[in-house]
């Protein structure tokens, strides 16, 4: 990745006016879809993502069921109109890889042993994509799992960290991701203090890597506050059955 544009100005502000450790505006809704067993919707910068969960349900094909726990399945998918150039609706290799890492990022939070011989299916549908769609999708999917009543050890919350203009910053948007020199998507169980997803592209010195890991945890904990608020509103403020909206603007 080559840096062409000036991504941080003389006042230390980024292209969209954010400070180095500032998140983009976030909006979270729970229980947005009628048919799904659990669902959530997140706007994270320009990301607009619907997540839904079906299950625990019968496992198909039968021979692939597990006698002592549920099989977790996940599909991350982008709408054809979600990106600048129209995307072919068939799943790309990128979507297949991200489906896998999202599933593996969510699985540690779930008590799958409580649902032997069943399947739990997660869908992450990106309606509009911006930098960090996979981690925003994880945040929404974890809410959808909670909304579906799946037993969980902790929530999972995602947040990326990147490197622009030689500086480690929180939560890259599309322009920063494209022009910056490093990106590190990250997901975390905040109460258990365990990392469930980490990917990295670009160039980080060992010290920058340490900083990035620290900043990612801070960012994730901030997203977690919103995630928690959305759940509390939905379930303990008489909002159950209704759609709950939590917003953090700037």
């Amino acid at each position, binding site marked *: 990745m080559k840096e062409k544009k000036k991504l941080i100005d003389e006042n230390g502000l980024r292209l969209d006016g954010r400070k180095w450790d500032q998140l983009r505006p976030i909006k979270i809704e729970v229980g947005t879809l009628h048919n799904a067993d659990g669902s959530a919707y997140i706007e994270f910068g320009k990301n*607009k993502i619907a997540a839904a969960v079906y299950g625990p349900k019968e496992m198909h094909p039968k021979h692939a069921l597990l006698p002592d726990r549920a099989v977790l399945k996940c599909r991350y998918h982008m709408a054809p109109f979600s990106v600048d150039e129209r995307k072919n609706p068939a799943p790309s290799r990128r979507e297949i890889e991200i489906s896998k890492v999202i599933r593996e990022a969510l699985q540690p939070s779930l008590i799958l042993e409580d649902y032997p011989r069943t399947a739990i299916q997660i869908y992450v549908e990106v309606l509009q994509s911006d930098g960090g769609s996979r981690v925003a999708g994880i945040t929404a999917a974890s809410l959808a799992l909670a909304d579906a009543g799946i037993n969980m050890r902790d929530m999972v919350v995602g947040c990326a960290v990147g490197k622009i203009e030689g500086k480690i910053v929180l939560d890259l948007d599309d322009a920063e991701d494209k022009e910056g020199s490093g990106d590190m998507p990250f997901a975390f169980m905040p109460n258990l203090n365990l990392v469930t997803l980490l990917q990295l592209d670009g160039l980080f010195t060992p010290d920058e890597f340490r900083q990035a890991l620290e900043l990612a945890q801070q960012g994730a904990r901030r997203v977690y506050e919103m995630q928690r608020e959305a759940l509390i509103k939905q379930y303990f403020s008489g909002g159950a059955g209704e759609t709950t909206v939590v917003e953090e603007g700037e």
Partner: protein
Amino acid sequence: MSASKKSYVVETLRKAQMIELLSKGKRIDGRQLDETRKLDVRTGVIEKANGSAIVTLGNTQVIAGVKVQPGTPFPDTPDKGVLMVGAEVLPLAAAYVEAGPPDEGAIELARVVDRGVRESEMIDLASLCIKEGKHVYAVFVDVNVLNVDGNLFDATSYAVVSALLTAKMPKYVLEGDAVKNSGEVLPVPVAKIPVSVTIARVGNTLIADPTSEEEAVMDSRITLTTDDESNICAGQKGEPGTFPPEQILQAAEVAIRRGKEIRQAIKAATGHG
């Protein structure tokens, strides 16, 4: 939980019950036989698309996005823009839907909606030619179904039409033999507003805009699309049942009448009122 995937035993019981109710002119959700559900249209929801709309028809919800790009014309229409309508029922939209290539139902859905737009000549494709035989505007309309509660045909049709009515596209100009974005922005050239209305036959009764529960017991359905002058511009009978000819004429009458109301609602929601 969706009721679109039919369980045969349940179907038989439900059907008897629903036919009894319908014989009294009543529907489970209290609607009149020819009454359509509450329609909500929100446009401009996807900034990265040239046009977009989320349409909610009862509990059925679909999103349509329009992408306009420079393209190559089809060999048999060298002087016309290209229009492509795709539809996918997302697997999160109902328990019965599976991920994978579109099945025959999704293909029928996309093709019927495509014909409704194409055959009504809603879009003036002739004005979307940049250089004959070489460069045209390619208009992609993709619909994703977010929640299934019956009558995907109409919800999809309304979303496509609403997204196109509010779409803005870059003006492309020729520079030598290449196409360049001029920086100017144009509306997509819309000539007409086609509106589809779907009528289901349950027993011997016709009902408009069926829910999933009603679809589960219907014998057949017919989708008729009308234009601003109440011409019928697309039709599709579906499902393994029948219609007596006179009920097809009744369905046409409903499609024209309800179509007018819905066209007004779409015009209002898209600023074409």
